């Protein structure tokens, strides 16, 4: 046993130390000796590869593929976190907080003003949008109004009917109608006498066995009108169109004087 660690005894232990086969007091003695003895240090360098070679003598086996991932995951450095200011004196920290608070207060105030401005702008924008929508609705309606007579005039089954004013009530009046059984009727009239109060003009399809109402007509102050009427598609083939004067709201069958008439054939 190596009770006394002289140079020769230690030198004999160096090879074992080189392969990591020493422990306890022997190991400590060799380590201490290596710091001061160049000869033994050189001896150690010669034996170090032997330890590695002995590792290679082991049957070579591949580690599982998952081991690499596990090791890298276990050793991966944590994301750098904000350091806590341990060395900052408390009053300095408090002062800093005050400055930050004041700054935040100012910032909040600025933000509130900005929000109010933006809210105002938003309200104005919404009003403009509403107005625009209204205009669009009106325009669409106008477009639809314009479209309806156009549809009638361009219908493949459209028929033109000229109506003449009847003496003695409306000798100067005249009208022209375009009628399509599928799409409706457009009528333009001029020189219609002003309507007495509580009365209205009513247009009729004159057909067997009885006239069928085509709609009500309201001329302007000059006695003119242009209007589009949607008419029932199941009207019996009319022989003529006629305009009578009737009580306001219209009637089921003509009762008043005939103002305009035109043959439909």
């Amino acid at each position, binding site marked *: 046993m190596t009770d006394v660690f002289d140079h020769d005894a230690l030198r004999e232990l160096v090879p074992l130390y080189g392969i*990591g086969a020493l422990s306890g007091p022997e190991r400590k003695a060799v380590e201490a000796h290596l710091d001061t003895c160049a000869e033994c240090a050189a001896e150690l360098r010669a034996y170090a*590869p*032997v330890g*590695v070679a002995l590792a290679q003598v082991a049957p070579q*086996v591949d*580690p599982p593929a998952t*081991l690499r991932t596990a090791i890298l995951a*276990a050793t991966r450095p944590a994301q750098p976190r904000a350091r806590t200011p341990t060395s900052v004196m408390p009053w300095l920290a408090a002062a800093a907080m005050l400055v930050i608070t004041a700054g935040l207060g100012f910032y909040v105030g600025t933000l509130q003003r900005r929000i109010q401005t933006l809210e105002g702008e938003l309200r104005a924008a919404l009003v403009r949008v509403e107005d625009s929508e209204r205009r669009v609705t009106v325009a669409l309606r106008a477009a639809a109004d314009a479209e309806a007579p156009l549809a009638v005039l361009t219908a493949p089954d459209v028929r033109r009917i000229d109506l003449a004013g009847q003496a003695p009530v409306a000798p100067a009046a005249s009208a022209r109608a375009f009628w399509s059984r599928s799409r409706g009727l457009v009528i333009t009239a001029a020189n219609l006498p002003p309507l007495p109060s509580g009365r209205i003009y009513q247009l009729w399809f004159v057909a067997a066995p009885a006239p069928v109402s085509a709609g009500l007509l309201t001329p302007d102050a000059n006695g003119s009108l242009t209007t589009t009427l949607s008419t029932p598609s199941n009207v019996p083939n009319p022989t003529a169109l006629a305009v009578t004067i009737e009580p306001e709201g219209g009637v089921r069958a003509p009762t008043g004087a005939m103002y305009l008439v035109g043959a439909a054939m």
Partner: protein
Amino acid sequence: MWLLAALAAIGDAAGAEIDRMIVRRMAGGDHLALGDLYDRHAHLLFSLALRILRERSDAEDVLQEAFSQVWRQAKRFEEGRGTVVGWLVTVTRSRALDRLRQRRAQPGGIENFDRMAEALPDPARALDVHLATSEAAERVRSALAALPDDQRVPLELAYYEGLSQSEIAAKLQTPLGTIKTRMRQALRRLRDALEGGLS
């Protein structure tokens, strides 16, 4: 992959320099460098740990511990004191032997007894040598295969089982002085073989 590790382990100068560069990167906090080091040496270290512990799960745990330690201590690695692979082998072997000793300290059931019996080297069996086909590796293999059993077995008990010379002497029922002499002879032969001399 492990051929590279083998070449570096045997002292290939280029491999050793690559290892040193990797460890310098690790010391600088480059975590990818640890992956590079793993790719170069995990095969060798896993084989060593498995040879010592004989259980794959234990060997995997040891490799985890060893690479974690190497990652933490990269800054402290002194290039003048030896090769990187020598350091890796030392760390891995030390961790594996610690675990082996813990296992031995557990109350021994039949299973434990069997495991220890299995871990003992078989004097009649030639060493398992599966080295890289490099010239140096071939020399090591030849030298080990040429060792007489009475030199090889004490060396195996010391290196793979972590037994002290006194424990080896008791186990083999051989005088301590004889064990010391035989181990020195065995190690000298291996050293000569590595240096290119005749074994």
